[in-house]
């Protein structure tokens, strides 16, 4: 058992299986850390499991720059609310946005500075450094120069340590457990030993983050393989807005930097050129050449590449030579990072592509963060509804911080009212056999390693489900995915049948999850025959309010993926107002 941090409590043995019992099970170490704190504060027994080493794995620890945290009059919750709904093009769940905006306005992020002992950037006069980011009406984003979220998160981790919360690192959750329609915990593998553990919990909080690894280029870390979306789907939960992927410009080359985020041209003081050194942004917006929204310049970049004006390494040039002069201290870290692999950003052009950055869709949750499966809560990137069709800068770390806590609190309240959940041991046996079979399977002929299949999925999604989408491409990708499902997944083979630290095995589980979420993205993208926010269809370039003020719902019905639509959740701001 790799219980980095605190000692694991005693496991009980039930039905010949090792069982860990807790009131609240939290899966994931970003928003999950805040959830665990809240559950502990509410008096519930809580355990947090992380697929990697807690504090190192996941995107929260890596995110940089900005957090939406400071609202000063005339700015208020209503203004933030309407900014988020307008950016999200009315696909947001307004009930969630209302709560979120009120919590930010109440200073729920800001108060953590003193409580957890980190420091937001200050100006020389002592005032907080505040940025007005794209789409925000006011300068409400606070900055912690480089290492911002890690620095906030160090405080969060400190608080977990202080409370003695049980943290289990390097546990891969394979499936959520359900019994009579309730979520009753999860089945996990201790990656180090390869042993199974049944987690029995009254409430389960899913905080597993995004799915960047489904795309060829992403700034997400290794573990972002969409596990949470796939597990919730298999458990019967409703997912929404699965067509909504956010990108940002990142490095295309050298290999060591591939996918690592750079930022918007206007923000980092950079300029984009194609291989002929033309400023192609002129074609899109001659006035604001480099000051267009993420998805607009992202699409322009992809068009240049597709039409043969890309660079040797499959990107376009990004001139960042003026970056150092543009008072952008929180981007300075890019200089040593690039210099380390022989790229002098003060002289040389970087090569860039829009990389997968954030996922707006996910598990549907109500305003108590509970999914459509009772007992299963979901929060932050794995949940949908807060950001709608496009997320504003700084609203993700804020989401993780504020909603992470709130979800943990709601989960604990529910757990403390509930009796001991009943485990369906047949289900456990079925899930465990499925996972063990992967390891022990004998394939006739040549097997395929999970990583090879992952790369196929990444290429397909990059080619057809990126910023430039059309019916033909999406159908081609779905066909490719069907081939992967029918011809490659059954031949997936591990290099070793040892369960001990066998990452091939973990990757096999991830590959199955990636196949599932890729299909959700493709089918939702195909269904939405309009262009709205981050989802743009070349064959339907206009927004269609008459038909598409709806969320697309993905759900598993009798073993089949079924898509339906629901009208958007409106409270205060009606479309068209």
């Amino acid at each position, binding site marked *: 058992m*790799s*219980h*980095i*941090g*605190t000692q694991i409590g005693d496991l009980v043995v039930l039905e010949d299986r090792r069982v860990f019992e807790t009131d609240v099970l939290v899966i994931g170490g970003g928003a999950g850390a805040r959830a665990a704190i809240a559950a502990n504060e509410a008096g519930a027994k809580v355990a947090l499991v992380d697929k*990697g*080493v807690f*504090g*190192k*794995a996941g995107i929260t*620890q*890596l995110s940089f720059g900005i957090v939406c945290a400071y609202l000063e009059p005339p700015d208020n919750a209503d203004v933030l609310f309407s900014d988020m709904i307008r950016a999200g093009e009315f696909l947001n769940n307004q009930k969630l946005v209302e709560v979120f905006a009120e919590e930010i306005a109440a200073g729920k992020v*800001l*108060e953590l*500075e*003193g*409580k*957890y*002992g*980190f*420091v*937001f*950037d*200050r*100006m*020389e*006069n002592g005032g*907080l450094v505040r940025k007005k980011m794209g789409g925000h009406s006011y300068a409400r984003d606070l900055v*912690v*120069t480089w*290492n911002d979220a*890690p*620095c906030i998160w*160090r*405080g969060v981790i*400190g*608080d977990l*340590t*202080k409370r003695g919360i049980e943290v289990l690192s390097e546990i891969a959750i394979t499936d959520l457990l359900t019994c009579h329609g309730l979520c009753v915990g999860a089945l996990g593998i201790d990656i*180090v030993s390869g042993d199974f553990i049944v987690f029995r919990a009254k409430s389960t909080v899913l905080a597993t983050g995004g799915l960047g690894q489904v795309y060829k280029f992403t700034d997400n*870390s*290794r573990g972002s393989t969409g596990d949470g979306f796939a597990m919730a789907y298999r458990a019967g939960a409703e997912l929404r807005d699965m067509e909504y992927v956010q990108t940002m410009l990142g490095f295309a080359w*050298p*290999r*060591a*930097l591939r996918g*690592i985020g750079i930022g918007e041209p206007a923000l980092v003081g950079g300029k984009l050129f194609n291989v002929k050194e033309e400023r192609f942004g002129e074609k899109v917006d001659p006035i604001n050449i480099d000051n267009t929204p993420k998805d607009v310049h992202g699409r322009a970049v992809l068009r240049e590449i597709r039409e043969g004006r890309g660079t040797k390494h499959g990107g376009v040039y990004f001139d960042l030579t003026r970056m150092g002069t543009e008072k952008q201290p929180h981007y300075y870290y890019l200089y040593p*990072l690039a210099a*380390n*692999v*022989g*790229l002098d950003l003060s002289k040389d052009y970087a090569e860039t592509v829009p990389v997968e950055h954030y996922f707006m869709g996910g598990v549907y949750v109500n305003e108590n963060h509970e999914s459509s499966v009772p007992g299963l809560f979901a929060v932050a990137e794995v949940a949908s509804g807060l950001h709608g069709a496009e997320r504003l800068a700084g609203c993700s770390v804020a989401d993780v911080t504020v909603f992470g806590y709130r979800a943990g609190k709601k989960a604990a309240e529910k757990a403390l009212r509930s009796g001991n959940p009943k485990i369906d041991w047949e289900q456990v046996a079925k899930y465990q056999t499925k996972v063990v079979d992967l390891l022990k399977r004998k394939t006739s002929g040549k097997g395929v390693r999970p*990583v090879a299949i992952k790369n196929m999925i990444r290429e397909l999604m990059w080619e057809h489900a990126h910023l430039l989408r059309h019916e033909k491409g999406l159908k081609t990708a779905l066909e490719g995915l069907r081939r992967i499902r029918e011809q490659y997944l059954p031949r997936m083979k591990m*290099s070793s049948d*040892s369960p*001990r*630290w*066998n*990452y*091939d095995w973990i990757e096999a589980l991830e590959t199955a999850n990636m196949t599932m979420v890729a299909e959700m993205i493709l089918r939702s993208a195909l269904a939405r025959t309009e262009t709205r926010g981050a989802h743009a269809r070349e064959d339907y370039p206009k927004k269609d309010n008459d038909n598409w003020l709806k969320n697309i719902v993905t759900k598993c019905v009798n073993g089949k993926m079924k898509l339906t639509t629901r009208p958007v959740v409106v409270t205060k701001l009606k479309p068209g107002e």
Partner: protein
Amino acid sequence: MPKPNMTVHVHRFDPTKDNEPRYKSYKVPIEESMTVLDTLMYVNDNIEPIAFRYECRFWDCGACGVMANGRPVLACKQAAQDGMKIGPLPIFPVIKDLVVDIGSYYRKRSQLRPFIERVRKPKEFPEPEVTYEVAQKYRQYVDCIDCLLCQVVCPVLKKPGTKFIGPALITYIARFAVDSRDELDRVTIALSEGLSECTLCGECNKVCPKGRNIAEVDIMRLRELAKERELM
């Protein structure tokens, strides 16, 4: 023309099966500006699986520390070299290949009360007490990513009977010692954890992937605070 290759020798060891570790050689096609991590990923994805940790790929999570030709490095930062030997960080038990059990470090860290201790509640947000100077000072400490390279290289930690807890853990104490919001006596903790045993040899500074000056910013500052109170 086939791409030219480089050879890397990677530590392979499963303590539950193997009597002793061995280094296995792999040929890796040379690409522009390859890092140690690039070579490990190449071998893992194209030749055979190796057990190693990594997460972020840009020196920010500190998960991929390994020994390259006998020196502790972050795999995602260190340039790859032909003939390079890649091994696990010493001083920790090997779980498999390059993955080590760092639990002892985390257990020690949690004993140091690595969180702000504060009974006095701030009256307003943002706190006027946190000035520009405080923010600048604080920044010197947040770069530490717990990669443990300094712990591995510290000669004092290798001395039998030493009380010194090592540079990375001293950083945790120093970070709170200089924070005026923290109310715990961190200097006394540092002294009881062997602060005076550090020889200021600077080996930790040389391996820090973030370029921190641990000897000066952490050790010296703590010693100054101890001297001011005539504790050393």
